[in-house]
């Protein structure tokens, strides 16, 4: 029946071409939108994971709250309404017992690696220029195991911070603000009254201006000293073997301690919401296009079947079983879906290549090109969606055609 189906399609070139293009267009749009979305997403994921990794363990800030103070001064039965509620901060954010975390994480088979960090705010200055910065103290050898920071190094290496010695890797934006370059020294201060000189040994550029303007990395020991908090760990970033385990792990670990344990999805809840909205938009747009293409297939086959009743009658009287009539029309829909799907993924791929080749005036991640994903799952999804739309759209009229009996048709033809 494939042969007959093919011949029938060829005899209606315009209609066939129109539907073919409809299916192709739907498939192509999905690939272009998904390619760009997933490309941007993996860029953003990388940016986020550089900051939070899979699981982020942070200390709780020691804030003084009304609930804790009231029972210390009044009995339980008394109703207390503070005119000026107690307010204040007992301590800065720090992990209560970092060593127990190190022991636990080292023993966990799901953990690839972990890296303790201390992030503080401060100010960098060089001669008359100064700028606000975020200083992150890291253990270089550990940090490069769980993030791809090394890939963003424009000069020097993360490992240049090993061993301490008041060395810094500085964001390109910070260098610009200060008019400094690698090899020169700048002064850091945390607002505690003392300026300390640090030598710039590397330049990093994350491709995000907001980050590059404040990012400064140093050895954790140097930063602890600068902050006058020896031994303090602000947070531990953890990389897991399987990123999908992050939520489950974070929930389990949070039972062990008062520290905050967040999976990267929780830490970036807004970002995850945005991704969900993107997904919905992509599916709605593509679904609408494929629906239109599907209706096209449905309408054309329905019209064709009503025009081809005489031929159906003769085929049935010759001995073509209802299943073969179903095949005749189903194959046409499936061929349109298959051909349209193939053309669509080819066009989508070519358009994505073109989009990626455009040189932008801004830096996105490591390059100045649009990040485009060529993940095979995008192409499989697009192709499968085209096939499913075509199969449903052609099955319904094909089934109706297969149920026609030759005599019904002949009688209606005879009037």
């Amino acid at each position, binding site marked *: 029946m494939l*042969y*007959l189906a093919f*011949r*029938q399609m*060829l*005899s209606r070139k315009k209609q066939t071409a129109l539907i073919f293009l409809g299916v192709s267009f739907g498939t192509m749009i999905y690939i272009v939108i998904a390619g760009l979305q997933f490309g941007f997403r993996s860029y953003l994921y990388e940016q986020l994971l550089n900051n939070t990794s899979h699981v982020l363990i942070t200390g709780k800030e020691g804030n003084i709250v009304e609930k804790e103070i009231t029972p210390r001064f009044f009995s339980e039965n008394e109703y207390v309404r503070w005119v000026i509620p107690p307010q204040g901060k007992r301590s800065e954010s720090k992990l209560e017992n970092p060593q127990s975390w190190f022991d636990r994480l080292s023993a966990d088979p799901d953990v690839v690696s972990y890296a303790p960090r201390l992030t503080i705010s401060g100010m960098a200055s060089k001669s008359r220029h100064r700028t606000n910065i975020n200083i992150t103290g890291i253990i270089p050898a550990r940090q490069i195991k769980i993030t791809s920071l090394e890939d963003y190094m424009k000069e020097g290496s993360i490992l240049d911070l090993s061993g301490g010695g008041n060395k810094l890797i500085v964001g390109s934006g910070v260098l610009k603000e200060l008019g400094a370059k690698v090899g020169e020294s700048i002064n850091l201060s945390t607002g505690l009254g003392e300026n300390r000189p640090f030598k710039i040994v590397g330049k990093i550029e994350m491709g995000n201006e907001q980050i590059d303007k404040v990012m400064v990395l140093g050895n954790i020991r140097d930063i602890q000293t600068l902050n006058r908090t020896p031994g303090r760990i602000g947070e531990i970033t953890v990389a897991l073997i399987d990123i999908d385990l992050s939520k489950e792990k974070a929930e389990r670990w949070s039972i062990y301690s008062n520290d905050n344990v967040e999976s990267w999805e929780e830490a970036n809840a807004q970002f995850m919401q945005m991704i969900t909205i993107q997904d919905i938009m992509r599916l709605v747009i593509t679904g609408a296009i494929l629906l239109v293409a599907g209706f096209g297939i449905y309408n054309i086959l329905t019209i064709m079947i009503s025009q081809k009743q*005489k*031929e159906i*009658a*003769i*085929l049935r*009287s*010759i*001995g*073509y*079983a209802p299943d*073969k009539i179903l095949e005749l029309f189903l194959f046409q829909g499936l061929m349109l879906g298959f051909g349209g799907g193939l053309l669509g993924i080819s066009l989508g791929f070519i358009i994505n290549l073109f989009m990626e080749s455009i040189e932008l005036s801004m830096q996105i991640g490591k390059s100045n090109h649009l990040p485009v994903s060529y993940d095979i799952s995008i192409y499989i999804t697009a192709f499968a969606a085209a096939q499913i739309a075509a199969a449903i759209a052609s099955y319904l009229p094909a089934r109706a055609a297969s149920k026609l*009996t*030759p*005599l019904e048709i*002949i009688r209606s*033809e*005879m009037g």
Partner: protein
Amino acid sequence: MSIVGKQIIKSFGDPAVEILHGLDLVIHDGEFVSISGRSGSGKSTLLYILSTLDKPTTGEIEIDGLNPYELGNNELHEYRNRSVGFIFQFHYLLPELTALENVLLGPRNLGLQEEYRQRAIELMEEFEIGDQIHKYPSQMSGGQQQRVAIARALIMKPRYIFADEPTGNLDSITGLKVMKFLQKINKEDGTAIVLVTHEPDYASMAEREIYLIDGRISSREHDAHA
């Protein structure tokens, strides 16, 4: 070897209107039978019942002693494919296929189109449309199209040909030609032909004529050999 109809009653609609009133008849192998009568007398209805395209409301059809409606779907389609050929008033050729491809539709259903290709060409040459084999129906005259339809009905060497007004849409010269073809097939190949026609001249070209009046076989039924 025959098709036997026993007490065939066929009614349509609600309330039921009886079109055929308890007909008994036999179509023998190799016979040329015409069924004629006025419009509405039930001749096409009888043809479709004998050919298994339609079921009687009551009564039975036996083909070689078997009730076709007790056969499985596959056997019934196989029977229609191999043993029966249909010729309709309208040729019902598939417009997207050439004349030769139309003739080979039956064998194609069984995957035998290559084996039957030579026979199809011979049949078409015999019907004087050998030069039309690669033409599409729209490029042929009505008479040529009907001859393609006859070749299509004959390609599988069926035992029975059921023809419903095959000349109804043709001019008298072409119509006569078609009738001569049917006679030739009947004589030379021994194919039984059941022909529905309202043309008395064509009806009388059959060996046996069944004349229907209001769904009953009239006493005018005669055997040409008698």
